[in-house]
């Protein structure tokens, strides 16, 4: 449902109903981000800055300048002090461009939502001098943009997102494996997908990313109709990625359908949590600030980040 906003309110661009009327992706992203309060983020790496994070036992080769002499005086052991460093974050946006992502209105569907959310994050990250890469995929990689942090790089990412058209079915395992292999440094991997894929393959792929010490954010994009199933009259549903068809009375199936969807959402959420990936369900009628909020919350809680880095490593 569209929120009532003043015409001059910059946050009005967070509303999908308003965004759907803005044709250009770069304009959408700029307006969303400028309308939103941006925040600083912390690096996933331990460096040497002002905020203490933890002690680590001294090992030969460590710089003795970082030895904590107070601990030595009390315990007669050498410990290194570790701090949280504010360094450039390396992020990779994985955007699902499979056929199922084109479900919805022609001007505002899952793909549009995912691309706009990805563009907003890219805008936000590059504005903070972080490097951002992008991979658009269906069964195969369609667009690959290496991570950079220059202002002009945003145009490259937005251009790649604009040109990524819906294709075939998703091969999520192959995609995540390739992403895990191709991203050289540990960083943040953000997946935008409807996750209408084989769940074991999805979890296996996410696990690969976590095993390579990446922080993983999953934005699960679904159309409101796919959750509410608010159809009437005899309808023949035709699969967008498979040749399946079903002629039925949707009202008779609604309760069972919603039950199945809820089970699926629970399975995906639990699977992601178990692996240590942050998960957020986004309906295409949700305002874009849910995505930005999730990202900023994710980055602003280092303790949660450490907890994540400790989980899902098996």
């Amino acid at each position, binding site marked *: 449902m569209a929120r009532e906003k003043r015409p001059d309110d910059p946050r009005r661009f967070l509303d999908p109903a308003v965004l759907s009327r803005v044709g250009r992706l770069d304009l959408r992203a700029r307006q969303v981000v400028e309308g939103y309060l941006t925040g600083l983020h912390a690096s996933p790496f331990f460096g040497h800055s002002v905020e203490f994070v933890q002690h680590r036992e001294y090992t030969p080769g460590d710089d003795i300048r970082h030895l904590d002499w107070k601990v030595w005086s009390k315990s007669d052991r050498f410990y290194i002090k570790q701090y949280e460093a504010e360094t450039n974050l390396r992020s990779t946006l994985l955007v699902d461009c499979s*056929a*199922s*992502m084109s*479900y919805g209105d022609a001007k505002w569907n*899952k793909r549009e939502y995912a691309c706009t959310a990805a563009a907003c994050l890219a805008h936000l990250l590059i504005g903070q001098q972080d490097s951002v890469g992008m991979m658009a995929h269906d069964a195969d990689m369609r667009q690959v943009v290496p991570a950079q942090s220059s202002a002009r790089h945003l145009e490259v990412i937005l251009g790649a997102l604009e040109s990524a058209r819906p294709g075939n079915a998703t091969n999520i395992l192959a995609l995540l494996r390739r992403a895990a292999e191709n991203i050289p440094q540990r960083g943040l991997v953000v997946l935008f997908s*409807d996750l*209408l894929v084989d769940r074991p393959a999805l979890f296996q792929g996410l696990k690969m990313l976590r095993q390579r010490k990446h922080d993983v954010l999953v934005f699960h994009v*679904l*159309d409101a109709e*796919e959750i509410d199933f608010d*159809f009437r*009259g*005899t*309808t*023949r*549903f*035709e*699969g*967008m*990625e*498979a040749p*399946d068809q*079903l*002629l*039925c*009375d949707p009202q*008779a*199936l609604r309760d*069972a*359908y919603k*039950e*199945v*969807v809820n089970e*699926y959402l629970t399975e995906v959420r639990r699977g992601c949590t178990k692996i240590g990936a942050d998960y957020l369900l986004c309906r295409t009628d949700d305002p874009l600030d849910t995505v930005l909020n999730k990202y900023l919350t994710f980055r602003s809680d280092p303790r949660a980040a450490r907890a994540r880095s400790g989980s899902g490593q098996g």
Partner: protein
Amino acid sequence: MESLFSLFLHPVAAIIGGLLASLPIIIHLIRRTQYKRQPWAAMEFLLAAQRRMRKRMVLEEWILLALRVLLVLLVAFLLSRWLGSGASGVGGDHIVILDDSISMADARDERGTRKTAFDNATAEAVRLARKLGATRGIHNLRFFLLSSMDEPVLEGKAGEDLARQAEEKLSRLRPSFLGLDPTKGIDASVEKWAAGGEDKIPATGSFTF
């Protein structure tokens, strides 16, 4: 089939109604050929939901279809009875035969008055005229004496007027001294019924009471 339709006062309406009962089935089949197409991404969930609900949906569809058919049949049956007894007037002609044989002169005391069997028969005939007048539709009554089946003693539309006339006229009649065969009267009335198209032959007389 013939005996089935003889149950209705208007069998044509029953036949038409029976045919109309097939309409829900035809509509059901037509609706299955008229549908909208919807591209759908989450077919996995839809097929899973359909697998869960298949038995229940089929059962519900059959029950719904059966109820619709039964409803139309019920309306048709009710209409066929109502039309028959009302607008058409078919089946509303009755012949009443009063047995005036000598045996009907047999008298006995009833509540202090002495009444013959013929008195009882005429009283019953009057009650019949009044009763038919109170029922729905047009009922024509003809009263005959068993001894003279050529001409009716009285005829007219059932109702209070005819009942009063019958009360007045029939009460003046007395049983004859003849020994009469009731079957001849029935045969004669069947002939009249066959000639006149009446479909109902009620008779009063010593063989009825």
